[in-house]
């Protein structure tokens, strides 16, 4: 499912470049739904001032019932995304050079950045935060889910589960805030790309030039 296998002229509509296949977009939105449900209900268990989230998600007991199951669903989408993107998410030398020059990216001085492949290093970091985050959230979440099955002599498992769940959740939330900000307000064209799948050639040249060159090369010259 990597981008090099897709032929833009065949799948994308006239003028656009296919950035995300239908399968990629679908799994992204399943992940987004399950994460947001657990974010909203999790924050309501975190602070009474945010309990309206649980009310909106079906009430406290309902939210407590679905929170772990949606967590399992989110973990499953992460497994899928890992299988789908692990090649694209590997760090390259171009990424290292890009990361050193990240202040230009932050200041919108994109012309000073080195050319990079399908994902930039920030996206790769976000992917890793979510990947390791869900590993920790799932492990600690099982301890909180079945907390009454833990015997008194192993009660330290409950304390560990609380600590790990809170820290991992906050880490994913930090990534999530940046992800949503950049995907909607900051990087114009990226939100439509995860809905329709398409980006303009100019967008692809500006943000992911190496990927652009790879996917627009005539099929016969591809490796």
């Amino acid at each position: 499912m990597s981008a090099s296998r897709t032929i833009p002229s065949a799948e994308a509509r006239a003028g656009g470049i296919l950035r995300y296949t239908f399968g990629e977009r679908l799994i992204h939105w399943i992940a987004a739904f399950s994460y947001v449900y657990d974010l909203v209900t999790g924050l309501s268990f975190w602070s009474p001032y945010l309990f309206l989230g649980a009310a909106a998600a079906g009430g406290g007991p309902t939210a407590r019932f679905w929170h772990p199951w949606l967590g399992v669903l989110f973990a499953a989408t992460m497994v899928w995304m890992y299988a789908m993107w692990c090649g694209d998410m590997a760090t390259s030398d171009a990424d290292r050079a890009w990361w050193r020059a990240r202040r230009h990216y932050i200041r919108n001085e994109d012309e000073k950045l080195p050319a990079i492949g399908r994902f930039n290093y920030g996206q790769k970091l976000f992917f890793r935060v979510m990947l390791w985050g869900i590993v920790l959230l799932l492990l600690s979440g099982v301890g909180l889910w079945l907390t009454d099955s833990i015997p008194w002599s192993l009660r330290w498992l409950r304390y560990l589960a609380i600590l790990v769940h809170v820290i991992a959740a906050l880490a994913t939330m930090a990534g999530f805030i940046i992800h949503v900000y950049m995907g909607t307000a900051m990087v114009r064209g990226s939100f439509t790309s995860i809905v329709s799948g398409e980006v303009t050639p100019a967008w692809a040249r500006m943000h992911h030039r190496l990927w652009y060159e790879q996917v627009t090369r005539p099929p016969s010259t591809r490796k």
Partner: protein
Amino acid sequence: MSQATLRIQKISGHPGPVPGAGTQRDLQVCKLVDVTTCIGCKACEVACLEWNGLPYATTSFDNTYQTMPETTWNFWNLIKFSEHQQENGTLMWLMRKDQCMHCAEPGCLMACPADGAIVQYDNGIVDFQQANCIGCGYCIAGCPFNIPKFNSHTKKVFKCTLCADRVAEGLEPACIKACPTGCLHFGTKSDMAGLAEARARQLREHSGFANAGVYDPPGVGGTGVIYVLHDAANPEAYGGLPKDPRIPWVVRLWKGPAKWVGNLALAGGLVAAAVHYMRFGPKRAPEDESRKGERP
């Protein structure tokens, strides 16, 4: 001890202070358990089941005089039995009535995220309100005494109520009513503390128990159930009564500093995104030759 003592003093998961807090003079109630005069008859266990209308709980025989290993969601009052060898080689049967301690600073209440699922009345009784319970089980982690127990069918947590319904009507709890030896007493906290101290002094001065004392652990702000022990230096011998119970440090960290650090970090992230947008604005790709006239 009237209905007025059931005014709510502390409340779980509630945004803001307790409505009506501090509007009345407090009157703390307390149960005194003198373990030195308990004969292990278990009348209190039966009285608890009877008064609270609890369904039958399976008992298990483990070659001791203990009904089951620990309290359950439908068995709130358990006599813990221990065979204890003293330093001089003699044997003692220790019987300790185990139930909710009704801590002045309840760890269950601190850990609970559900508005009003756990309350502490002005009289000091810590009570679970199952109608508001969401079944998360955080109270189980918050308790230093292993008391809240989960019903996996209803997904609610239960424990001893100190017979708040009886206390509200000016009656003593059912367990106290049933005790045949007078090892259980009920009254105000100050009266019970005085009685306990007097009994401990009697044990030290006249019965040869040099370490006799009162168990009213300060780590949880004192408790609404206090014990007279023959050996107050070794509460663990009495069916694992913790020596210095405290709300687990993870729970205190989580509900204290971690909450503020986490909230500030989240708010900081949102503010930083907004400030970045105002300072640098969106990142736009140059208009595409092939898409002129279309909206991106």
